[in-house]
């Protein structure tokens, strides 16, 4: 770990005034909340901030379900949200995605806000022994393109970066049209989660739309996403404590045995949590007949680009959608 000054502000305004910047390796000041990802990044010298600003005790950790829907305080832990009775009853796919993430120890500590801001698991980003990573060192190149890229993205990639966003939670939340509440020195704003993460493009080192000083204060999920038949299917290399190779979050509004509306997002395949509206449109009004589901799921491959080792994900993600829709549709 490189030396840093640790600030422990007494209130949130003092923390915001220190203008830390999330999701950029070239930022000299960074926030720390639960710290499960940040401490790893510090230990591996991936992040070398001059100053670390603690948000411990400064952010809302309440979990509320009301007429407006669900509100998750940014400091609520993964374990608290996953075990919350009303989350389990009304928004089960969120609890399911969380319980399929990380380990019990990490879930006791990691927060909602931090989960959305966790950095990619691309091995070339995580290991400073590799010279080239545009996300870690802007302009240095991408080692994953032409390298070991089994874990990398097939959707939303650019010639500069093919790193996957690793969050399971974000995949479930983006399927439910979640909104990120942000506080900052310039005031508060709300950002749809679908617009919160940036595509890598020419600037893969800028991962979110957060400005300097801004922090996530809460995540909200609209009430019309409650009570849907849902499933979070996670395909991974071992049964537990592993990131997704491919995942599919599906929430269905059913009309008898037919699909009135499907909400579908993919994980493990995109440079950001990946919603597939073209598949949703094709499934609207459809039955759960397998051939019809396969036909609709095939549309997820639009624009997908394999890099060699990860070509299999393009087929696997379609099958994951079909399987998740079948499981969700069979729920009562």
């Amino acid at each position, binding site marked *: *770990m*490189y*030396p*840093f*000054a*640790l600030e*422990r502000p007494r209130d949130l305004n003092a923390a915001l005034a220190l203008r830390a910047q999330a999701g950029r390796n070239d930022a000299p000041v960074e926030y*720390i909340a639960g*710290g*499960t990802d940040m*401490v*790893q990044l*510090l*230990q*591996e*010298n991936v992040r*070398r901030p*001059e100053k*670390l600003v*603690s948000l*411990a005790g400064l952010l809302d950790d309440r979990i509320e379900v009301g007429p407006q829907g669900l509100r998750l305080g940014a400091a609520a832990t993964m*374990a608290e949200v996953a075990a919350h009775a009303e989350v389990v009853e009304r928004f089960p796919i969120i609890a399911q995605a969380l319980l399929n993430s*990380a*380990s*019990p*120890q*990490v879930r*006791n*500590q990691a927060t909602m806000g931090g989960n959305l801001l966790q950095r990619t698991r691309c091995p070339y980003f995580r290991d*400073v*022994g*590799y*010279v080239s990573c545009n996300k870690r*060192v802007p302009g*240095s190149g991408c080692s994953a393109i032409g390298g070991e890229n089994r874990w990398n993205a097939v959707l939303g990639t650019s010639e500069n970066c093919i790193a996957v966003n690793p969050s399971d939670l974000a995949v479930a939340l983006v399927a439910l049209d979640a909104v990120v509440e942000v506080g900052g020195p310039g005031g508060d704003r709300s950002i749809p989660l679908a617009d919160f993460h940036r595509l890598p493009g020419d600037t893969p080192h800028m991962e979110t739309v957060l400005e300097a000083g801004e922090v996530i204060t809460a995540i909200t999920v609209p009430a019309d996403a409650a009570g849907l038949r849902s499933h979070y299917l996670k395909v991974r290399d071992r*049964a*537990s*404590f592993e990131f997704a190779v491919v995942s599919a979050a599906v929430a269905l509004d059913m009309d008898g045995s037919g699909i009135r509306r499907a909400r579908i997002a993919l994980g493990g395949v995109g440079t950001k949590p990946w919603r597939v509206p073209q598949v949703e449109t094709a499934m609207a009004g459809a039955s759960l007949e397998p051939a019809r589901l396969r036909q609709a799921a095939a549309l997820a491959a639009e624009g997908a680009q394999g890099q060699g080792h990860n070509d299999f994900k393009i087929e696997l993600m379609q099958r994951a959608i079909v399987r998740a829709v079948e499981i969700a549709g069979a729920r009562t």
Partner: protein
Amino acid sequence: MPGASSPAAAQGYRSAPAPLDVVLRVNGAEHRLALDARTTLLDALREHLHLTGSKKGCGLGQCGACTVLMDGKRVKSCLNLAALVEGREITTIEGLAQGDQLHPLQAAFIERDAFQCGYCTSGQIMAGVACINEGHANSPEEIREWMSGNLCRCGAYDHIVAAIRDAAAVTGSTRGG
């Protein structure tokens, strides 16, 4: 070119700021320490308080050998900066027994021979105590899922699961750790 020279030279050398005053509550006792901001809870326990029962395996939250309880909940002490856990009640493996009376899970680990080299054992026991307290020790399958944050390179998993089942039967799911 980053990576081609030493990391320190590429980044520019930066000297460590002055130590921070940190008060840690560990196994019921309060300790006043002066710590570099980089000090993890694990390093504070081992290097400053000489509580070496918590082990450093990976230092990256992957192996679970450093598991402790914080306000009764299991966490990985290597993923916590010590200066950010002031006021929290930390319980380590050294704080588990009541005098000479082992915690039922410690006794079960001996009875079931739930280790070979023993390096992961204190973390397994701390995670196992939490697993039982949470009510997640009702079947071998459930125990395996909820103990997935603790790795054992010797592969003593079958005996670890058996020990946790035994202790869960003895303690019920409500006993404090």
